[in-house]
C-alpha cells in the first residue's frame, strides 16, 4: 500500500534533511505542547477508497473518513506517526477529489461533519511570533508545521464551498458568526500560503452568506482598528484589503453612509501604519475604487492623505506619491480644481526633497498625459506654486538625474504659459537679488562693527581720548543695527581710514 511505502521512504533520514527541517523554523501547531504527555499515539487505519464503494456505501464512508480526519497529528516531531500521517494525507486528498468531481454528495448530514472536521483541523490559537522583528522583505516567514495536512483541509473546504450543490441556507447553521470569527483570527498566521487560502475562503463566504456580510465587515474593521491603534501587528491586512477591494467594487450607488465612514475612519488612517509597505498596493486599489464609485469623495480623500503625508519616512512618501498619481488618473476635472492648491503645495515640497527617489517620483507626474492636461487647464494657479522650488533646485540639487527631470518639467511649464513663466522668473530673480543685497548689507555692517571693536581695543591700548567717543558710538551701533542713522554713518566714515589700515 502506498502508506507503507511512503513510511519506508521517510524512515532513513539523512542528516542533511533533518538539519534542513530544523532550519525551516517550522512552528508547532499549538495544539501540542512540546513536553507535555501526549495522548496515546493517534492511529487511523486506512479505509476503503471512496471510488471503490457502491453508491449506497459512499455516503457512510464519506462521513467515516471525515470523522477520521478529525484526528490531529503532531508535525513538530518530524519522525513520529509517519504511517498514520500519510494515511490522513491520502484520505484528505481523496476527499478533495470526491467533493470536487462528484455531484449529489452534499446531503444535509454531511454539513456538520465537514465543518467539524475543518474546525478541528484549522482553528487554533496561533503561537506568538518567533521573530518579533520580522521583515517580510528580508526574512523568511515562519511556516506552519502541519501544512501537509492543513493545505488539504483548506483545499477541501474551498471545494466544498464552490461545489454547485452547496446550499448556503443549510450551511448557515454551521458556518455562523462564531465560525467566521475564528476564521478571521487565523488571518494573523505568518504562513502566506495559509492566508492565501483564507482569503479565497472568506471571499466565497462573503459572497454566499448574505446574512454574515455586515458581521464580517464589522469584525474586519475591528481587527483593522486594533492593528492600527493597539497592537501594530497583524499579518493579514493585505488579504483583508484584497477582499475589501472586490467588495468595494460591487458597492451599489448611492454609497451607504457606513461605507463612507469605513473609508474615512479606517482606510485613510491605515495609511499611517508603520507596515504600510506590506499592503499599500491593495490599500491604494481600495481607495481608487471608492473614488471611481463616488467622485464626490475626492476632496475628503485627498485632504486626508495630505494630512497624513509622511514627514520622516521617505519610503512611505514614495508610496503616497504613487497613490496620488493613481488618484489623479481617475479624478474629474471639477474635483481637481478643489484640491489642486494644497496638493501642489505638497508636490512642490516633494520635488525639492533631498531624497532623490521622492523628488524623482514627484517630477515624474509631468510625464502623465492626463495630469498634464489638468495642470494645463489650471496653469495660472499651479505654476506659481511650483515655480520657486523648481527653479531653486535646478541650481542646487545634488543629483544630476533630478536636474535633468527638472529641466523637462520647467520646459513643459514654460511652453504652457510663457508670459506667466517669464513674470515668475523676473519676480523670483528680483526677490533673490533683494535677499542678496540684504545679506550683503548685513555682512558689511558686521564687518564694520568688528573693525570698530578692533579700533576700540587698539585705542585702549594706546590710551587715546577717542576711546570714549568710540565706545558710545559702538553702543549706538549695537542698539540700532538696522538703522541708517547719520551718526552711525559718520562714525563709520570717520574710521574709514583706520579701517583700510586695519585691513
Amino acid at each position, binding site marked *: 500500500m502506498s502508506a507503507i511505502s511512503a513510511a519506508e521512504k521517510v524512515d532513513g533520514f539523512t542528516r542533511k534533511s533533518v538539519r534542513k527541517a530544523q532550519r525551516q523554523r517550522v512552528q508547532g501547531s499549538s495544539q501540542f505542547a512540546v513536553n507535555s504527555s501526549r495522548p496515546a499515539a493517534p492511529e487511523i487505519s486506512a479505509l476503503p477508497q471512496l471510488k471503490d464503494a457502491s453508491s449506497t456505501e459512499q455516503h457512510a464512508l464519506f462521513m467515516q473518513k471525515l470523522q477520521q480526519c478529525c484526528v490531529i497529528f503532531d508535525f513538530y516531531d518530524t519522525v513520529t506517526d509517519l504511517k498514520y500521517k500519510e494515511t490522513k494525507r491520502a484520505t484528505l486528498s481523496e476527499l478533495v477529489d470526491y467533493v470536487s468531481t462528484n455531484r449529489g454528495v452534499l446531503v444535509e448530514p454531511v454539513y456538520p461533519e465537514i465543518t467539524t472536521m475543518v474546525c478541528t483541523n484549522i482553528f487554533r490559537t496561533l503561537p506568538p511570533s518567533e521573530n518579533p522583528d520580522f521583515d517580510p522583505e528580508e526574512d523568511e516567514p515562519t511556516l506552519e508545521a502541519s501544512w501537509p495536512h492543513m493545505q488539504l483541509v483548506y483545499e477541501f473546504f474551498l471545494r466544498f464551498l464552490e461545489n454547485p450543490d452547496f446550499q448556503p441556507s443549510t450551511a448557515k447553521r454551521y458556518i455562523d458568526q462564531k465560525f467566521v470569527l475564528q476564521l478571521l483570527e487565523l488571518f494573523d498566521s505568518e504562513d502566506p500560503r495559509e492566508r492565501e487560502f483564507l482569503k479565497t475562503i472568506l471571499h466565497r463566504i462573503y459572497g454566499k452568506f*448574505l446574512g454574515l456580510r455586515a458581521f464580517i465587515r*464589522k469584525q474586519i474593521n475591528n481587527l483593522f482598528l486594533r492593528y492600527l491603534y493597539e497592537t501594530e501587528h497583524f499579518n493579514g491586512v493585505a488579504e483583508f484589503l484584497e477582499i475589501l477591494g472586490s467588495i468595494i467594487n460591487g458597492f451599489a450607488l448611492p454609497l451607504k453612509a457606513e461605507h463612507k465612514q469605513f473609508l474615512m475612519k479606517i482606510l485613510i488612517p491605515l495609511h499611517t501604519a508603520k507596515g504600510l509597505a506590506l499592503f499599500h498596493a491593495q490599500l491604494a486599489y481600495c481607495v481608487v475604487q471608492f473614488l471611481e464609485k463616488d467622485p464626490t469623495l475626492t476632496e475628503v480623500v485627498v485632504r486626508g492623505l495630505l494630512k497624513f503625508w509622511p514627514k520622516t519616512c521617505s519610503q512611505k512618501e514614495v508610496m503616497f506619491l504613487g497613490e496620488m498619481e493613481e488618484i489623479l488618473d481617475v479624478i474629474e476635472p471639477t474635483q481637481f480644481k478643489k484640491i489642486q492648491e494644497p496638493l501642489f503645495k505638497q508636490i512642490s515640497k516633494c520635488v525639492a526633497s533631498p531624497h532623490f527617489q521622492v523628488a524623482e517620483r514627484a517630477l515624474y507626474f509631468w510625464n502623465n498625459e492626463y495630469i498634464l492636461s489638468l495642470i494645463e487647464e489650471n496653469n495660472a494657479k499651479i505654476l506659481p506654486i511650483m515655480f520657486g522650488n523648481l527653479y531653486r533646485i535646478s541650481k542646487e540639487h545634488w543629483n544630476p*538625474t533630478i536636474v535633468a527631470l527638472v529641466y523637462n518639467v520647467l520646459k513643459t511649464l514654460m511652453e504652457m504659459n510663457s508670459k506667466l513663466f*517669464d513674470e515668475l522668473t523676473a519676480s523670483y530673480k528680483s526677490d533673490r537679488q533683494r535677499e542678496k543685497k540684504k545679506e550683503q548689507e548685513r555682512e558689511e555692517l558686521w564687518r564694520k562693527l568688528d573693525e570698530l571693536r578692533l579700533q576700540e581695543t587698539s585705542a585702549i591700548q594706546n590710551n587715546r581720548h577717542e576711546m570714549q567717543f568710540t565706545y558710545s558710538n559702538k553702543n549706538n551701533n549695537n542698539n540700532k543695527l538696522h538703522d541708517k542713522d547719520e551718526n552711525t554713518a559718520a562714525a563709520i566714515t570717520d574710521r574709514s581710514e583706520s579701517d583700510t589700515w586695519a585691513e
Partner: protein
Amino acid sequence: MEAFKLMKELKSNLELEVHYLPKETGLSLIESTQENGNGVSAKCRDARVEDLLSLTNFFGYSTQTFVLAVNLLDRFLAMMKVQSKYLACISIGCLHIAVRVTEEECNVSSSHELIRISQSKFTISDLSRMEKIISEKLNFQFKAVTALTFLHLYHAIALSHTSNRKDVLNLDKLEAQLKACLCRIVFSKAKPSVLALSLLMLEIEALQSADLLEIFHRIQTHLKISKADLAHWRGLVNQCMREYSSPECAKPDNKKLVWIVSRRTAQNLHSSYRCIPELPTIPEGAWDESESEDSSEDLSSGEESLSSSLGSDAGGLYFPSNFRSRACRP
C-alpha cells in the same frame, strides 16, 4: 548730456547693425523649405530656438546670451545650406559660443552638461567641431549688434528723459517680449533697430504715455526709420504679443522629452496598483443583509459603532459580547 551720448551711441550702432544681419535670401529660403524634407524649415528653426530659450531660462543665462545665440544661428543658417539633422548640434553650438562670450566664466556650464540637459544625441567632440565651423564661417564676429542692444539704448534714453518716473518702462518685460519674438524666424528679417523700436512703441502705447511717445517719434525721425517699415513690423509684433499673452496655452507638441529615472523608481513605477484583482467582484444587493435573522442585531450595532467617533465610547461597541467571551475560552 547723457542723452546726447546715448544718441551718439545709437547712431553708431545703427551703422553697425547691417553687418550682423542674416542674409535675407537665406532666411527666405528657410521660410519656403518644406517641413518633411532634408533641409531646415521655418518650423524646425523656430522649434530649435524655443529649445534654446528653455535652456537659457533653465541655466539662468542672460537675455544677451540668448539673443546673441539666435543671431549667430540665423546668420549661419542663412549662409549655409544645412541638413536638418545637424540643426540640434548647430543650435547648441551657437548657444555655447554665446555663453562663453557673454557670461562670466563661473557661470559657463560645460559642454557635457549642455548636451545632457538638452537630451542631445551628439558628442562633446561633435559639438566642439561644430563650434569651430560656426566660428570660422562667421569670421569670429561675436560682438553682434542686436535688437537687445537697441532695446537697452532706447530704455536708457527713456530713463534719461523721465527721471522722476523711473520704473515706467519695465526692461525685464521688454526683454521677455523680445525673446518671444525671436522665436519666430520672421523677426530675424527685421532690422534690429526697427524691431526694438516696434516693441517699445507697443509698450508705450499700452502705458498711454504721451511724453514717451513724443520722444520716440523724434528718435524715429532722427534714425530715419520709415513709417511704413515701423508700421509693418509693429503689426507683426503686436500679433506675436497677443499670442504670447493669451491665457490659452499652446500644447507642447514638439519632440517628446525623455524622462530618465533611476532604476529603483522605474521598478516602482511598473508595479501597478491597478493590478487586476484575482478575486471577482461581489455585488452589493440592495436588499441583502437587512432580511437576515441572524445578523440583524449586529447589523444595527455595526452601523452605530462606525458612525460614532473613535474615542472614549469606542471600547464597548467595537468588541461584541460574544467575541469577548470567546476570547476567555481556553
